[in-house]
């Protein structure tokens, strides 16, 4: 099992400077958050997906489709029930609250998908360089990328451990929620123990390779803002500005929803 999300492909997205990609990621969040009309949210999602397609990164979505579906459905149902509106649909559910739920669901999924595309096209090391070039100290930048790296590592340790415990007869699929939660103890304890142990070795290895030995540091990866970055940034800034203008002009909102 390959624990990391990064896909080593040669696309123009991969070749963008990490700072550009960070800006695009934050921009995608902004786009997803300024609108409330599900139709507009759908357009934003479509844009993100087209971008992901060009970056040849959509295959990673197959690994998280369940999360996307679960989060999306849960949000939709919750807001439909909790929210209020003007147009009754059935029972105590109103049209506006359903639409609102749909928007929020799309918004959350869009941000997750944008994040996955970012991680599929940007190496951990590039994230670090990007942060350093934005003026963040290397130690902090390294800590951020280590946290990103730890997630898939823990996932793959967890997989091995669940095999070991299933071999002993642990059955994670039956029982009510409380019983099931208790069944995860045999997984969590070894995951913690193993992770802490390997993190300890990891930090020793870092020190032994001169991490933080001197103030200055060079980078093996070459990154520079090039013509491509400028074009992408300009296009994206125009898009952002246009979206904000639309929103200020009153488009893309949801009438009649009351929380």
């Amino acid at each position: 099992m390959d624990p990391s999300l990064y896909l080593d492909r040669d696309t123009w997205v991969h070749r963008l400077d990490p700072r550009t990609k960070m800006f695009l990621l934050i921009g995608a969040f902004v786009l997803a958050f300024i609108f409330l009309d599900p139709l507009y949210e759908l357009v934003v999602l479509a844009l993100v997906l087209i971008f992901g397609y060009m970056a040849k990164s959509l295959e990673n979505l197959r690994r998280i489709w369940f999360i996307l579906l679960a989060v999306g459905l849960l949000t939709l149902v919750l807001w439909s029930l909790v929210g209020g509106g003007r147009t009754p649909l059935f029972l105590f559910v109103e049209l506006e609250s359903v639409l609102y739920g749909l928007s929020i669901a799309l918004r959350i999924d869009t941000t997750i998908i944008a994040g996955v595309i970012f991680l599929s096209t940007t190496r951990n090391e590039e994230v670090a360089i990007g942060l350093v070039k934005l003026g963040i100290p290397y130690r902090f930048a390294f800590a951020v990328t280590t946290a990103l790296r730890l997630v898939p590592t823990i996932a793959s340790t967890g997989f091995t451990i669940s095999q070991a415990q299933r071999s002993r007869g642990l059955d994670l699929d039956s029982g009510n929620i409380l019983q099931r939660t208790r069944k995860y103890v045999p997984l969590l304890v070894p995951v913690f123990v193993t992770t802490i142990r390997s993190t300890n070795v990891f930090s020793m290895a870092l020190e032994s390779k001169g991490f933080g030995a001197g103030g200055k540091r060079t980078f093996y990866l070459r990154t520079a803002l090039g013509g491509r970055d400028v074009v992408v940034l300009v296009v994206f800034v125009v898009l952002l500005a246009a979206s904000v203008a639309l929103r200020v002009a009153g488009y893309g909102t949801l009438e009649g929803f009351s929380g």
Partner: protein
Amino acid sequence: MEPAVSVQGLGYRYRGQQKPALEGVDLEVAEGEFVVVMGPSGAGKSTLCVSLNGLIPHFFRGRMEGEVRVRGHSTREGRVGEFAREIGLVFQDFEAQLFSTNVALEVAFGPENFAVERDEMERRVNSVLGQVRLEGFEDRQPATLSGGQKQRLAIASVLAIEPRILCLDEPTTDLDPVGKLGVFEIAEELKNRDDVTLIVVEHETEETLDADRIVVLREGRVVADRAAREVLRDVELLEESGVMPLQVTRFFHEMGLWQGQLPLTPEEGAQEFRQRGWRISQERHRELVDEDEERTQGYGEPIIEVGGLSHRYPNGFAALEGVDLTVRKGEFLAILGQNGSGKTTLVKHFNGLLKPTGGTVKVGGEETTEQGMLRLGQSVGYVFQNPDHQIFSDTVSDEVSFGPRIREMEGAEIKERVDEALSAVGLEGRGEEDPFGLTKGERQRVAVASVLAVRPEVLILDEPTTGLDYAEQRSMMELVARLNEAGSTIIVVTHTMWVVAEYAHRAVVVREGKIELSGTVREVFSREDELWEASLRPPHIVSLGNSLGYPVLSVDELVRVTEGG
């Protein structure tokens, strides 16, 4: 000339520990020397390693006495990062040290920290990857490499800083025989360079023949520090120190040769054997073969039947293709093969962790796909390689009773089974202890006990001796042999060849998803050329016997069949 490393009166006690890990250690290593450090678990070998680059006293908490100087600089002064330029340290757990997204970046990390210019960095990446034979792997993700390749990458990532001293902590523990050889070839080349000093912690004696000097540690103290060949000939010292002596040397020692004359390698041994006019008694060798035969006749009915088994992983990788295998009741089977050959994939089919994508696997006459893991676990127990991947309870007996509890047995029955399992693994009366306070060898036993408590008919052990020292390996395998004699069917997956030779009855060699060789251990180990092709090497005593024309499996067997001594 100033020594590369000078250790004077070094003592260290970790915080919270009663006993010191090191006590009064004096050691000097000259520039360009190749020194091997040996000793049982808990002797202080790793503590010594981390003392050399300043992790002790700067990273660990505890009390340090004495002094360590690296090329003249005391480790008490200055930071760990600064010593990295002088001494490179490669840790035993190579998985945990690799963190980059590709091989080139992993190697470049050290030079980056020392602000090496981009062009120079590229030169070093190329040259170091050449040294560890990983050219062409620059863009690969470290996670996709084999164990041996990962260890070589870990070494490369340290070499790129161009330290004058390299310290490797048990670099071959987790590797298959050919992976081990690859690491030692690198060591060999570094040894030939005068400007690199090499300090290697190792517990496999066969790998230490090229060292200049061997230092033996026991309970935190140096008990021997002499020329390598001299230490290797001192069979008694090694045995007392919990280190496995060379088998050829032990054979001649038992035949009564004087210490100074003892040969070390199979080649030297064969020559000595012939020169002395010794012979192998054909009659007694015949007895050995007959005993094998008799044992084979004694097995019961088939318990695991594999027919035309294929397994293809979701990513398309064909791990097994058309495997046929029958395991009968009472067998002691060893499954051999290099990393990635498919041997673990094969055994994971026996307890239902994997389902065949082609062919069938039957346990007790019924297909595994019909049985479900809970029921299969009743007949096939699986002990994973790393006990820390399964231990989660506060007490040993809670851990061991997990299997019976989950199968909803009664209190009295559970207690009986826990007691039985604990006494089978030699941990009787220790049920109330905290498993995390035990040694690795003991935790391994807890893992075995927790599987035994279900009373499975078949016991699968994945690398049961990895990470254990010689004495622990022996007692672990004695335990397994006792279980086999008491009627359990045993399947071990292992890289440790002497364990196979001395304990298993039958061996199966898996290579590229197919069964390459199958037969009694004696038959399989007599085919040295075919083993080499599968990246395996029989132990020294087997090689000696083969070159004399009579396959033997242990020192004792060779003593038994030798005439004229």
